[in-house]
C-alpha cells in the first residue's frame, strides 16, 4: 500500500516535472530568434538595443543572419530589410517589466564588407573582422573591436573601448571611458576622453595624424625605434614622462606654449618626423614609452 502511494506520488511528480520542462523549453524557444536576409554588395546594418550583448562577426556569405535571445516577452525584436539596408531594433512592449526582463542578446553575422551603425546603452558590443565604416553610440556599454577596417566613429559616455588591430581612421569621444588601441594601422586617430585613460600601442604611419586628449587620467603612447614622428605633448597641471630620443622639431612648427607656468611640455621629432602626434592633458600624466 505504502509502495503504491509512493509510486503514485513519484509518477505525479514526474508528470509535473515534464510539464514544467516543456513549458520552460517552449518559453526559451519563443524567446530565441533567428532571421536571415539576403544582401548584395555592401549592406548597411543598423542595430538599436538598449540592454544586452551585441556580437557582430564577418563571414563569407552574402547574407546577414540575426540570431539571439530576449530575456522575456516584455521586449520584441523588430527587423526590417529595405534593399541593402537592414534595421534591427529591440522594442519594449511592457512598461512594467523589470530591467532584467528587457535584455536582448544578439549574434549577428554579416558579409565582411559591411557598414554598421550600433546604438546601445548598457551591455557589451563586440565586432570582429568587419571591413566598412562603423559608428557606435553608447552610454555605459563597453566596445571591443577586433581586426576591423574603415572609418570608425565612437561616441560613448562611460563605456570603454578596446580596438585590436584596427585599420583606417578613428574619431572617438567619451566622458569617463578608457580607450586602448592595440597594434593599430591607422592613419588618422582622434581620441578624447575626460577622465579616462588612453593607450596607443602601435606604429605611427607615415603622414599619419594622432591626436589624443584627456582631462585627467593617463595618456600613454608606445613607440619603436623605427617610428618617425613629430610630437607635441602638454599637460597643463600634470606630468610628461618621455623615453623617446626626440630632437628639436625638424619642421619648425610653432609650439602652443601654455601661459601656465606649471605646465609640462615636450616638442620634438623622432627620426624624420613623418607622423604628427599631439598629446594633451589638463591634469593627467602623458607617457611616451619605448615598446618592450
Amino acid at each position: 500500500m505504502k509502495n503504491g502511494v509512493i509510486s503514485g506520488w513519484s509518477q505525479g511528480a514526474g508528470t509535473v516535472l515534464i510539464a514544467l520542462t516543456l513549458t520552460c523549453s517552449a518559453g526559451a524557444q519563443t524567446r530565441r530568434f533567428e532571421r536571415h536576409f539576403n544582401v548584395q554588395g555592401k549592406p548597411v546594418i543598423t542595430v538599436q538595443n538598449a540592454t544586452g550583448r551585441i556580437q557582430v562577426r564577418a563571414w563569407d556569405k552574402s547574407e546577414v543572419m540575426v540570431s539571439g535571445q530576449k530575456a522575456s516577452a516584455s521586449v520584441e525584436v523588430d527587423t526590417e530589410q529595405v534593399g541593402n539596408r537592414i534595421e534591427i531594433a529591440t522594442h519594449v512592449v511592457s512598461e512594467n517589466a523589470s530591467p532584467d526582463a528587457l535584455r536582448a542578446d544578439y549574434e549577428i553575422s554579416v558579409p565582411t564588407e559591411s557598414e554598421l551603425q550600433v546604438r546601445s546603452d548598457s551591455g557589451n558590443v563586440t565586432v570582429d573582422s568587419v571591413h566598412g565604416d562603423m559608428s557606435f553610440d553608447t552610454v555605459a556599454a563597453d566596445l571591443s573591436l577586433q581586426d576591423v577596417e574603415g572609418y570608425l566613429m565612437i561616441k560613448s559616455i562611460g563605456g570603454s573601448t578596446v580596438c585590436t588591430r584596427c585599420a583606417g581612421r578613428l574619431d572617438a569621444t567619451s566622458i569617463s571611458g578608457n580607450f586602448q588601441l592595440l597594434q593599430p594601422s591607422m592613419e588618422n586617430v582622434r581620441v578624447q576622453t575626460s577622465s579616462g585613460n588612453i593607450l596607443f600601442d602601435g606604429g605611427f604611419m607615415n603622414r599619419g595624424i594622432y591626436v589624443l586628449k584627456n582631462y585627467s587620467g593617463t595618456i600613454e603612447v608606445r613607440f619603436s625605434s623605427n617610428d618617425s614622428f613629430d610630437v607635441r605633448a602638454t599637460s597643463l597641471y600634470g606630468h610628461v614622462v618621455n623615453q623617446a630620443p626626440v630632437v628639436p622639431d625638424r619642421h619648425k612648427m610653432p609650439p602652443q606654449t601654455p601661459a601656465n607656468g606649471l605646465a609640462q611640455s615636450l616638442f620634438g621629432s623622432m627620426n624624420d618626423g613623418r607622423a604628427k602626434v599631439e598629446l594633451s592633458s589638463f591634469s593627467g600624466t602623458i607617457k611616451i614609452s619605448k615598446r618592450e
Partner: protein
Amino acid sequence: MSPIQCAQFERILEEQPDGPLPAPAAAHVNGCTDCRLLWSDLEAIRTAGMEWGSEEVAPPEHLWISLRVEMESEGLIQRRPAQAGWWATWFGTAPRWALAGASISLLLIAAMLATYQTTAPAGKDFRVASLLPAHLSVPGATEKLIAADLGETLDGDLKRVFASLPERNPLLASSLRENLGIVDNLIAVCEKSVRERPNDKMTRDYLYGAYQQKAVLLATAMDRSASEGQ
C-alpha cells in the same frame, strides 16, 4: 469646469502654444508646481524670443545652417523623416514639452561653441555670457537670459531630462548621472583655472571642451529619453 491632468495640460500647450491659457489649464497650472515651472519656462523663452526678434538681431542664415550641420555631424541631432515641423524633425515626432527648455539650452550652447572666438574678454568675473563673441551683440533681455546663467539653466534642464528617463533602465540613468558629476567637476576645475589665468588660451579651450561635453551629455539624455519613451 472639470479638472485636468498634467498630460492634458501638455497636450493643450502642444495644440496652442501661444496666447492665454484656457480656463481649465489656467486652473491646473495654479495648483501644479511642475506644470507651473514648465509654463514659466516657456513664457521666459517666448518673451526672450520676442525681444530678440524685435531688436532684429537675427543671426545670419549660414549660422543656422552651419549649426545644424555641425550638430548633425557631432551626432547631437538626427534627421528624422519629415512629419510635422522642424521641431518634430529634430527631436522626434512627439514633442515633449519637458525637453523644450533643454533644447533651447542646447542651441544656445551650440551657438556659443560654434561662434566662440579666442578674443573672448578676460574679465575677472567669469561668466558664460562673457564668452559670447563681440560681433554677436545681444539685447539686454537676452543677455540677461544667458548671463542668468546658462550653466544653471542647463542644470535645471538636465534635472528635468533625467527625471524623464525611463525607470526601467536604471543603469542608463546612473551612468548619465555619474558622468554628469565628472563633467561638472571638470567645469569647476577649469573655471577656477580660467579665473586664475584668464589669458591662457589652452585653459579656456579646456573649459569650452568641458561645456561641450555637458551639452553632449544633455543631448544623449534627451535622445534616450525621447527614444525610450516611444
